[in-house]
């Protein structure tokens, strides 16, 4: 069964002569547990696509179904809660909350549900991400690699079905990059999660189950990494 279905997504910025078509009739589906890499030139529309999937932005036309739910039919409040519980985000610039500690940052989506985080699960994430020693630290006291690991922890805490990662290793050196990717893969395997990740890094893309290429707003399914 497909976890994600993207049907005929178009996104146009501006209108008239200045209109820019960022995405042109993009359709694809991703089954549960698959690790998909999205590659493409800068400005090709990768991030726009990811933002549409995560419902951070709305398409000009088309729809997105996550686990059978059509996300753009939900009102803002419902969508926010859906996103909080079902989608994990990892950004290139980490985007951690500076006033929360490592542990609080990881537990943040659960806290937003006004629930007590599952201590054992938080502990498990901290262990998997090797952040136990840093749990009380604030983001500014961490290295870039550590901050990205916290962001991964935050994306995992609600056991989301889907993890969207926009160049998560863009700001990391190669050792940290490899660590982060292997952590992501381990986690997704362990928790049966679907990952869609934008990357410029060919070796990372080569480890994906499937590669999608976006070029000038058009998506091409490259299948398994073929190079």
């Amino acid at each position, binding site marked *: 069964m497909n976890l994600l279905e993207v049907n005929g997504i178009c996104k146009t910025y501006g209108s008239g002569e200045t209109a820019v078509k960022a995405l042109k009739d993009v359709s694809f589906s991703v089954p549960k547990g698959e690790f998909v890499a999205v590659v493409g030139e800068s400005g090709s529309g990768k991030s726009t696509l990811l933002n549409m999937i995560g419902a951070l932005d709305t398409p000009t036309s088309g729809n997105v179904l996550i686990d059978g739910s059509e996300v753009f039919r939900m009102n803002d409040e419902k969508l926010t*809660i859906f996103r909080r519980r079902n989608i994990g985000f990892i950004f290139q610039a*980490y*985007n951690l909350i*500076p006033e929360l500690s490592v542990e609080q940052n990881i537990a943040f989506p659960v806290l937003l549900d006004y629930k007590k985080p599952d201590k054992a699960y938080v502990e498990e994430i901290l262990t998997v991400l090797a952040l136990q020693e840093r749990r009380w630290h604030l983001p*500014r006291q961490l290295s870039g690699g550590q901050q990205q690991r916290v962001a991964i922890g*935050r994306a995992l805490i609600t056991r989301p079905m889907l993890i969207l990662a926009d160049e998560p290793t863009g700001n990391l050196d190669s050792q940290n990059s490899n660590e982060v990717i292997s952590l992501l893969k381990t986690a997704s395997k362990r928790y049966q999660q679907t990952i869609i990740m934008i990357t410029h890094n060919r070796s990372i893309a080569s480890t994906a189950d499937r590669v999608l290429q976006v070029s000038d707003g058009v998506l091409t399914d490259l299948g398994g990494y073929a190079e």
Partner: protein
Amino acid sequence: MNSYLGLVSEYQKAHKEKNRLTVICIAISVMLVTAIFGMADLSIEAQISAHIRQKGNYHAIISGISDSIAEEIRSRNDVKTAGWIGMAEDTSYQGKELFIQGGEQDMAGQMTLVVTDGAYPASEQEALLDRLALAQFGISIGDTIDITFSNGQVRQYTITGTFNDFSGLKGFDAHGLFLSVEGIRALGTGMYQEYFYMQFKSGVNINRALSEIKAEHGLEENQVSVNTMLLGLMGQSDDSSMVQLYITAGILFILVTMAGTFMIASSFNMSVLERTQFFGLLRCLGATKKQVRRYVRLEGLRYSLKAIPIGLLAGCALMWAALLFLNILNSQYLPEMPLLQISWHGIAAGVVIGFLVVMLASRSPAKKAAKVSPQAAVTGNISHTNNGQINQASNTKLFRVDTAMGFNHAFSNKKSLILIAGSFALSIILFVCFTVLIDFMGYGLKPLKPYAPDITIVGADNTILLDRSLMEEVKTLPHIKKVYARMFFYDIPANSKQGDGNAVLISYDEPQFEWTEKMLISGDIDNVQNGDGILIEHGYGGESDWHVGDMITLRLPGGTHEVTVAGILSDTPFNAENDEWILICSETTFTALTGRTEYNIIDLQVDEDISEQVRSFITPQMRLLDKQQGNREARTAYYGMAVFVYGFLLVIALVALINILNTVNASVSNRMGNYGVMRAVGMSGRQLKRMVTAEAAAYAITGSIVGGVLGLLLHRFIFESIITSNWGALWQPPLAVLAVTIIAALVTTFASVLSPTRKIEEMSIVNVVNAG
């Protein structure tokens, strides 16, 4: 772009909204300073002109000097005008009191004597007589009158002209004869006192000039006296109560300046700190620390150039609006005051304070900006909050995560907290402290009491009584608002459980009982108005402790009577002489006790001048005290000050309101990036609203507590130095004012959250997140 500094204008063009918030903040503070200082300036000018109108335009009086010394003083460079004014003993003319004065024409003019018809007396046999006297005595200009002086001498004067009405004369049913200097001197030694009135040029240090004059001519301290009020208003008095007032003005000046400074500093601080990353980027691209500092300063300068003129204009407009508003409310009593006045002092204060504060405020963020590490800026390894480093994680155990983060935003950076909560607190302190001026005005310039009469008919002495028919006659006149009368019985030996005493029995009629109700502390007026009880004034300091039900024995000529205290009054319109007990009863009770029915005094409140018609009813044994002009002057003085006091409060309230709105708005705008991330990871609009509200509440509550405590302390200090020291009134905490102020601040804060949170809900998460 010819220089790297050209980026300043490019950046400002690209970030118009953020730019606008900072400009508004600076403009608001400049507006506050301009409006308050401008109003203070106009208020002092208005008070000076009102004082001059009422008391004359002189700075000092010297007595007991010869003509030659007077000439020497007059010829000093710093003296603008000077001259002799003499006063003779009062006498009477055709049964009316006659005040006799005389002096040099120039100085008489400065003392507000205006010859309305005819000419100023030139010789010792010539005189001016007031306009009413000419009408009442049937005298024309050119006629001759004989005046008998207290030593028996009779002098003849030719009336050469008439002068404007003086409230002092009309209020006593008296008239004024004004002579030339020769005329007053011709009365002979012992018959008059002569004083040398002086007016100095503007800008002269009057106290120093007077010391010089004293030293030069060997004058005694008691020969020279100054016009304390006028010098006080000119800022030149060394009188102790004036010095207290100056200290108060100084404190209020500092408060206004501080409020302006805080507003500018906090907005500038926010605007620069949120762009740490931007400055890091500049450093990364090769800008030196010095260049970054210069950049921030130039930015400040550009803000000033834009915001200060807006602030000045808004300040003047606010001042005009306040004047116009209060003018509409009290148009009939206001002194003549051109509405669209410009106060150069206010404008200068606005420019100087606005410019200096922006330049000073840009120093610290400039330094901070210069310190940003280029590496931190480009790798994104930098705090996203505008408010610098966060040292403590939010307390998510005590509060929900959204509330906890809101508090953390507010409390994590001490400097921002001090600046923002400080500007809240200052608004509250300013408002609370300025309300002392209302009390000051209440004590200093007695507002007209509701029972103040416009016209009073009274016997020439206590033995002359007014028949009730006179009251009925007066009532038939047009333009009468109220007529009320009193009977008095003086010197009644009395006795109560408090011991022996002397009582004055006074009768009231309906309107007076109505006014008295507001002064009733305990008891019931009905038992007095329709029964045989009496009202008594509660004594000050507890020396007379009256209770309802106390019995007082009055030994009246017709026999001994007992009366019962039915009500205690906080105050009466009468001054008790020699600790007399003032007893107020109904006319029926009065007549039953004393057997008398005739009035001692009839008062009228009118809506048009009908003094001439009333005069036609009275006999020569009666006096008509025309207080209309005096009342008008008292009202004018009161409202003249009220305009400014309430104007100050209006301006402060408005500025505080705008400041709170803008601060919350700016604080939210500056954290937009942060909020975007929170939205992306699942924070709902409602949760964001809760977070922003928690942050705003933290500022407002901290500001209210600090402002409340400091405001009360300062209120007490100001109250004691300008009111207790002058009138002995004890300080009471202004809890009602404080409560209203704090509630207003809190409501405004919560209202001000609405618009920015809507903005957050509507923002594009993508743009914010991608902006890093």
